[in-house]
Structure formats: C-alpha cells, structure tokens
C-alpha cells in the first residue's frame, strides 16, 4: 500500500504564503493498494487536485470513505471531476446519521442543490453508488479490508482501519478522546469512567500495530484547555494513542487553520524533544507527501 496526503488542514481551507509548505486543503488521503485499487479517505477540498490527477488514468473506480459529514470532509465531492465523466465508478461509503436517519447519500445530495451548486445529482455522468456502512463490519475492496469504528466527535464519526498487502493504516477522521463529564468527587464519576475505559480499549484494539496511524492533532495541550469539547485531539493525545496501539508511524493531521508552517514546525520540534526515543516515527502530515508503507 502507499498513501498520499491531498489535504491536511482542519475546518477550512487556508491557502496562502504561510501554509504553502504543509498545505491549505482540507482533509483527503489517497490510499493505493499494490493491485492499484484507489481508496480515498474523506473528500475535503484536497480531493479536487486528486481528481485532476485521476483524469490522466480514466476510466477510474474510486472508493471514497467519509469519516463524517462536516463540511471540511465532504466539501470537495462536487469538485471531484471524475464524477462528471461517463465510464467512471464512484463508490461512496459512510455511516447512517442517527438524528435524521439518512444514509451517506446525504454527503453529496445536500450539496448538489440548485441554491448551492449549478449541477444536480441527476446530472452526474459517472456511476455513483452509495453504501451506508456499519461500525465493525468490514468492506472488501480487492485485497483490502476496510473496517469502520465509531469515534467520538460532535457528529457521528467513523475511524477507518485498512488492512491490505500485509500492512495497515488507521485514520481517525475528527476525534477528541472521550473525557469524563463528571468531577472526581461526584457519584457518577466512577461509573462513567468505566464506560470510557471500555470504549478506549476498543479504540486501541482497532488501531493495534498499524503501520500508519493518522490522527486528528489539532491543538497543543495549552490550547485544548479552552477548546475542550470541540471535537478534536491534541499532539499529546495522539502520541499517547500511538504508544498504546504500538503503531509504527504516527502522522499528525487536521492542522489548526490559523497555524502557519513555521508554527507547525516549532510545535513539531517541541513534540520530538518532549518525546525522545519513541518506538514509532512521528511525522507532520504534509500535502503532496507520498508514503510507501
């Protein structure tokens, strides 16, 4: 398997001179199996340049897995050029929305409306297929096995584990480690903590021994104090998970939108200094970066 980051920015695209090195596009990761199957994790604005690249190898079959339907993870879908060209097969996968009871077709349907976009869904020329999937149930694409797990974020969010060609990748989508909503001196604290511990064990099992662990690391621990509950993790929480899961490589992603390249690198160096001799490599996800596992 190989992977390439096409979008590493959180929340909103941030083009400009201060983000040119790590990139301003929102979340999109391309995974290519040894057999050439194309698996795309999230469809933020980064999927637009990925679509441009794929135009050179038509017809394409692309499997797009959506972690959750916040804008920065779906906004690029209508700009993924292969959806307009006959002969391409676009398969979109994601979870059922618990509140509206709508399947993953909502990710595209909600955007392709006259008020927001000039082309209607009925006018897409590629074959577009929607698959509403369940946590814990694996999907097979060629040799690849993709398994979703429910992770905590303000909306329903799936983390995805991909096992293929003897290697594995886990991507969290947006993820804030669960915290106890009670204070230690409250009666409910212990019980709630036991639920959290059970859930965390499940999450670590899902990430166990992966070659590449790609985690939402939006904030520093200092920033997190006022951003607790916003649905994103920290550099420290990502490192802790990578240690527990015995991952081989850890990628920090979902870079905070106001963060400049320079600031990212300062934080990165600081993290390396504070965490010497980890058994895994720590890497800042960077747009255009190809990784051969």
């Amino acid at each position, binding site marked *: 398997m190989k992977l390439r980051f096409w979008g590493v920015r959180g929340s909103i695209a941030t083009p400009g001179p201060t983000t040119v090195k790590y990139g301003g596009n929102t979340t999109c990761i391309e995974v290519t199996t040894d057999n050439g199957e194309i698996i795309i994790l999230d469809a933020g604005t980064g999927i637009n340049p990925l679509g441009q690249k794929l135009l050179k190898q038509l017809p394409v079959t692309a499997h797009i897995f959506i972690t959750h339907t916040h804008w920065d993870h779906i906004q690029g879908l209508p700009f993924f050029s292969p959806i307009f060209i006959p002969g391409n097969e676009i398969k979109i996968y994601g979870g059922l929305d618990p509140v509206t009871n709508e399947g993953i077709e909502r990710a595209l349907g909600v955007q392709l409306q006259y008020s927001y976009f000039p082309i209607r869904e009925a006018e897409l020329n590629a074959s577009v297929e929607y698959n509403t999937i369940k946590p814990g149930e694996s999907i097979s694409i060629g040799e690849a096995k993709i398994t979703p797990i429910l992770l905590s974020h303000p909306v329903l969010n799936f983390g995805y584990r991909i096992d293929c060609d003897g290697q594995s990748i886990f991507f969290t989508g947006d993820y804030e480690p669960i915290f106890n*909503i009670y204070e230690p001196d409250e009666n409910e604290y212990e019980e709630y903590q036991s639920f959290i511990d059970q859930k965390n064990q499940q999450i670590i099992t899902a990430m166990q021994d992966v070659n590449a662990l790609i985690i939402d690391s939006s904030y520093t621990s200092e920033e997190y104090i006022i951003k607790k509950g916003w649905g994103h993790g920290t550099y420290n929480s990502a490192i802790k998970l990578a240690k527990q899961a015995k991952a081989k490589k850890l990628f920090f992603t979902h870079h905070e939108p106001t963060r400049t390249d320079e600031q990212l690198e300062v934080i990165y160096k600081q993290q390396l200094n504070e965490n010497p001799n980890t058994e895994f490599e720590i890497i800042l996800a960077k747009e255009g970066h190809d990784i051969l596992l």
Partner: protein
Amino acid sequence: MTAIDNEELIAFVEKMPAFPKSVQKVVQLTSDVNASAKEIVRVIESDPVMTVKILKVINSAFYGLPKKITSIQRAVVHIGLNTIKNLALSVAAMGVLNPTNKAGFNTQDFLLHSLTTASISRILAEKLGVKASECSDFFVAGLIHDFGKIVFAEFDPVNFKLALEKSAIGNSSLDSAEIEFMGINHAQAGRLLAEKWELDIQLIDAIDHHHSINNESLLKDCVFVANQISKKLQFGFAGNPIIEITPGELIPRFELSLDDLITSLGDLSNVRSEALSFINS
C-alpha cells in the same frame, strides 16, 4: 374487549412526544453552547419517553455495537454528546405530552413514580454490591418499567380509563383490568415496543416481568422491589394500587420483609424530593 393493533401502536409511539418539563429543558440547554454535558444527561434520564427514544436509535442495528447500550451515559460515550443533544432536540420537536389526557391518567404522578422507582432500583443495586459500571442500568430499567402505561393513556385512553377505574374501584390489579379492556397489559405492550426497538434483553425482561420476583435476573428483581417500595411509600402514583409483596413475606435476595427493607435503606424522602424538584423546577 378491543384488541390493540400492534403495528398501529408502534407507529403511534414513534410520534409520541415527551414530558413538558424535559422538552422545555432540552430546548433551553441545546440553545446554550456552554450547557454542561451532565445536565443534559440528567434531563434526558428524567424522562422515560425521551430515554427510550434515544436508546432505540443507538441500539439500532446500524451502529452494530458489540453490546447493547442501556443508559444515556453510555450512549454519550459511544456516539458523542452533540448527537445525543440533537436526538433529544428531535424528540422535543415532536411537542409535549398533554398533562390532561383523555384517560384521566395523572402524568405528573406517573413521572414521580417512574423517577422514584428508578432511584430506588439503583439504591437496591448498590446495596447488593452491583459494580459501579452497571448501576445506571438499574436506574434506566426503573425509569422505563411502566412506559407502557403512558403509551396506553395516549394511544387508547378510553379503554385505559376503564381499566384504571376498575382497578381503583375494586382495589385490584391494573394488569388484569388492562387485559380485560385492551387484551394486553402495559408490561406486555412495553415488551413489544422494547423488542421492536432492539433494546437490551435484560431491559426488555425487566419491563415485562416487573410484577414478579424470581431470582433469575438481578435487574428484574431490583426493579420489581423498587416498584413496590415506591408504591408503599406513595411516591407518586401510576394507576396500580396493589403492592405485590404480602406483609411479612421475606423478599428473596434481601431476606427482609418489605417494611424491614425500607427501614434498612434509611431516609428515602430525599429520593422523592429530588424527583419532585426536577418535575417542578
């Protein structure tokens, strides 16, 4: 007797609103970006209708959870606070239960009975040494054990009124009167709905068998005993005047009579006042 149409009943409950106080509080809390998570959990877990509706969504096969979710706290851990908030808001959007239904069933007294049974069920579980991680299940089971009654009051008020009257006049079991007038009692109706919604089997059993003790399930037995204590202490009223433990009879698991068990639990008046403070706040 008019038999209830199960499909109609299920469809009816889908649209059934929750209690006015919790609807009002959910709207208030979901409009405040700084509202605390525990306050939201507390409001939801104080309303049997809202609680079952949220458990129904999270336990649907679509989330393929390895274990059924039996409390709102667990639901928050698995699916996130915002989703729970939005689910509660979608229940709130269905309106509010009319406090004066055509069955003449007092919904405030019903709620007080449900809430106190819930708290006492948890207290009993703690007394029996149940692990902390399971105590909220006992609360939820107590909260929703009589769910079928509020459904009857809304769905078939005419016949439910007849059943309530017969039970009150004859000082006899409401269950048999329900069977007489509706062909199904509230425990069976509760089971039917809980099964349809794929709730946890232990919860389903606790709803269905809350009128007997049999040492099979701790959850079931605690709900049964809590129900009797709540009735004995007249914490609210849910239409059934009969206490199903005879005076002096030793209650299995506790090896005490009902009166002695109540005494051993200390002052339970705060259970009632806490529930009332929620209902009336």
